[in-house]
């Protein structure tokens, strides 16, 4: 396991995605929403990396920027050494077979006017793989792999339940044998009893096909079960990045601490919880210095003035906080 982790699949360097904001009579450019603001990390082969943050922190944008569904503003994304940001149309199409996405809302991610068989088959058609007959066999095989019956291929999405639709989304993502799957909150729209089914399925296929996952979530409990490494994001930046064990047992950033203690649990009963003040600020007008300082329970004098950099505190444990200088 350890050995395999050393092969870097994706290396992201100083990635930025800004959305310009305009106002006034002549649509003057008055600022940027810095959805992703200088993010650096990498994903190894077969690794599950969890990306955690609250709504508006830019985690979904980051997920969409990697296969260039959103054009990055600057930075590099290396896939096995080639820079995705510099690929032409043809190269990009080929790449998109290797990196797939699973969405949060299983209902919206399937074309309501297409049978699910056609939906699962579509990647094969797009990339011109196999003939008609072989494709049908492959669709049947994929459906069985995600726990559906092959004869259901002729049905339309509205004839399935939420959990089944998510399985269909997974089958479609698997069709091209990708190396990386970006799963954007894959279970948060599902019922509790269905969530476990889908998470188990995702773990099974990860092992079986040797996939890497970028698992995006707002909740640390799902991440705890799935991920090898965890990155915590706040207002467009990664504030802490570590191995799961390390992060959960020895969280360094005050925001991580708060997130960990905020999750309701059978045991804690809310005792010793760190309660953060206020809400996540607007990414259009983030606070000065460390973006987290107005809500931080361990705030220092320097925090409002200077932005902390992501530095390695222990082995493979990175944190961006003035407490550890």
């Amino acid at each position: 396991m350890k050995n395999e982790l050393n092969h870097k699949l994706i290396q992201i360097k100083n990635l930025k995605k800004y959305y310009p904001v305009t106002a006034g009579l002549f649509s003057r450019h008055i600022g940027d929403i810095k959805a992703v603001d200088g993010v650096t990390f990498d994903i190894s082969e077969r690794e599950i990396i969890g990306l955690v943050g609250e709504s508006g922190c830019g985690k979904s944008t980051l997920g969409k920027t990697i296969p260039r569904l959103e054009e990055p503003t600057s930075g590099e994304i290396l896939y096995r050494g080639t820079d995705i940001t510099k690929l032409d149309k043809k190269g990009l199409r080929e790449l998109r077979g290797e990196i797939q996405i699973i969405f949060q809302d299983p209902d919206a991610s399937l074309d309501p006017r297409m049978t699910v068989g056609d939906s699962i088959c579509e990647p094969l058609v797009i990339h011109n793989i196999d003939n008609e007959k072989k494709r049908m066999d492959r669709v049947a095989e994929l459906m069985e792999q995600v726990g559906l019956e092959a004869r259901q291929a002729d049905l339309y999405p509205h004839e399935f339940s939420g959990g089944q639709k998510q399985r269909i989304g997974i089958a479609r993502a698997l069709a091209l044998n990708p190396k990386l799957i970006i799963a954007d909150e894959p279970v948060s729209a599902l019922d509790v009893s269905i969530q476990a089914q889908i998470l188990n399925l995702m773990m099974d296929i990860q092992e079986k096909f040797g996939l890497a996952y970028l698992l995006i979530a707002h909740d640390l409990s799902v991440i705890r079960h799935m991920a090898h490494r965890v990155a915590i994001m706040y207002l467009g930046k990664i504030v802490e990045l570590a191995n799961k064990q390390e992060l959960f047992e020895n969280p360094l950033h005050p925001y991580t601490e708060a997130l960990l203690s905020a999750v309701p649990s059978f045991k804690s009963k809310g005792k010793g919880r760190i309660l953060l003040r206020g809400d996540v600020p607007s990414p259009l007008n983030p606070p000065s210095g460390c973006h987290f300082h107005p809500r931080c329970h361990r705030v220092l004098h320097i925090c409002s003035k200077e932005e902390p950099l992501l530095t390695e505190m222990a082995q493979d444990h990175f944190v961006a906080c003035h407490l550890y200088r």
Partner: protein
Amino acid sequence: MIKRLQDIIKKISQHLRLNTRLINYYWQRTRRNKLAVAGLAFIIFLVALGIIGPLFTLDPTEVNFEERDMPPVYLPSEQFTYDIQTGQYTTKEIRGTWKHALGTDSKGRDMLAMLVSGARISLLVGLIATGIAIILGTIIGVLSAYLGGWADNALMRFTDVMMTFPFFLLLVLIVFIFGRSLAIIVLAIGLTGWTGAARLLRSESLSLRTREFIVATKALGASDNRVIFRHLIPNVISLIIVIATLSIPSVILAEAALSFIGLGDTTKTSWGIILESGQNTLETSPWVAVEPGIMIFLTVLAFNFLGDGLRDAFDPKSNI
């Protein structure tokens, strides 16, 4: 362009053939709305009437002054006649005959025959003008949404100008200047009536473009063509059908209104033309104005019923 169009039509029909089950599903949903079914039945009846009806009726153009102003069978009418010899007015009740079941006009033409051939013309006008308007509207709307940027801006500003234009005045101007032929009227209605469709289709396409299944398809590496023709267009087809169903009646109304103010094609017996001619004999033979009006009204009503039912059936949120 034409090749592209053929391509679109081929792809759409291919898609429709594949999706008979989907069509069946929507038909089942439409069927629950009784008014929509009644509307559809009336439209089918009208189409049948327009196609084969003229085979069974008299010649609608045959003028016969002997039998002018004959009342329909359901309405006996009194006729004043001035006797030149005695210099007296006499009142005579005349009854309709089954030969002219719906009466005759002031030139003795058979009303039933005129209404039946009017159905053909009014439906054709409705279909062709709507067709032109919908095709224009779809191209402009979808293109505008997909291109974005300055092209979108230019197209939408042009749409705004056309929308602000006093529609009926424009129609009257065009028809007055270019001649009162049916072809000009159909073209004029088609070329001015696309703005609503363009707006609706643009906003629908814009919202579809950001839907996750479109993003998912792009993530699979699909080309723009594939996204537009396999996902975008099939998903706006239901909206196109609804817009078309609801704009046919307004086209029929516009043509009738033009005829009514004397800008119709008098060589063709559309319902509007019959109605216009009946307006002068309102006091003596009101049926000439009443009957085509009822036909227009029922047709418009039928299309409105059907359009409304289809809109509900296609709306995933509605619980019918």
